[in-house]
């Protein structure tokens, strides 16, 4: 099973995005790249921030790159950042991302009206992430 976070996990995630009819429909008008930032938690085997970039366009993911770094990552139209363990909760569906953003547990940078207009697409991205069979890096022995 792919390890989260990793390039292998990202590849699986992207493949599922591009195979998802639900996402394609929900994100039909979405234009804009997105960077997920998995913030460092050294005690959980995530020693540094990981900036993971996905290029989302009209229901598909055109490109994706793992660990692009902050300089590159900050150019994305949307940035969502949270500590690694929060992302783990999101992927396990233990934390609803909308609630998480409203509680300040996930920090979103970017045009909020666009996110609100496309909340179905955003929810699908989370559902897809939850569908990736995942081993978590802090649970490795």
């Amino acid at each position, binding site marked *: 099973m792919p390890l989260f976070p990793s390039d292998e996990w990202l590849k699986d995630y992207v493949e599922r995005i591009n195979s998802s009819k639900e996402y394609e429909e929900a994100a039909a008008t979405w234009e804009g790249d997105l960077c997920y930032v998995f913030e460092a938690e050294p005690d959980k085997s995530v020693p540094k921030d990981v900036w993971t970039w996905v290029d989302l366009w009209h229901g598909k993911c055109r490109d994706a790159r793992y660990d692009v770094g902050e300089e590159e990552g900050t150019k994305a139209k949307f940035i969502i950042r949270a500590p690694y363990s929060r992302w783990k909760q999101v992927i396990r569906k233990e934390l*609803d991302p*909308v*609630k998480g*953003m*409203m*509680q*300040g*547990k996930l*920090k*979103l940078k970017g*045009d*909020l*009206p*666009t996110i*609100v*207009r496309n*909340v179905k697409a955003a929810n699908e991205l989370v559902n897809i992430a939850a569908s990736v069979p995942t081993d978590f890096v802090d649970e490795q022995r």
Partner: protein
Amino acid sequence: MDPVVIEPGAEGLGEMLGGLVRGNLERAPQRLELLRAPVSRVNVRAADMNASVGILMGAGRFHVHPSVLPNPDLDIRADAQTLLALAAVPLRLGMPDVATVEGRAIVAKLARGDLRVRGMVGRLPLLTRLNRLLSAL
């Protein structure tokens, strides 16, 4: 000068509401007119998250505070998803358009008490201004 001010401590819900209004004003600057009225007090409470903010709206500003304000003109209470849905619902004359599925869903929530708007009847113009400011459509 940025008409939207988000006080420290208003992260999360405050940032979302303030960020929405800021984005809407950037996209449609004519909506600044909606902030010209005298200052009103609006509280927004996310019932399922124990998060709430107070907003001073008017005189050219949308000023978000990290806690509710006393004697509000409007007091809005709903769960997080409903608050978000309010920003995505099509409007007619500043109120949820009941000719749409989304509009009827909001009205149904109001009827059930899942969405509560205290002060709605007496402050309808304020509510319609707020709806138009928040609307992402």
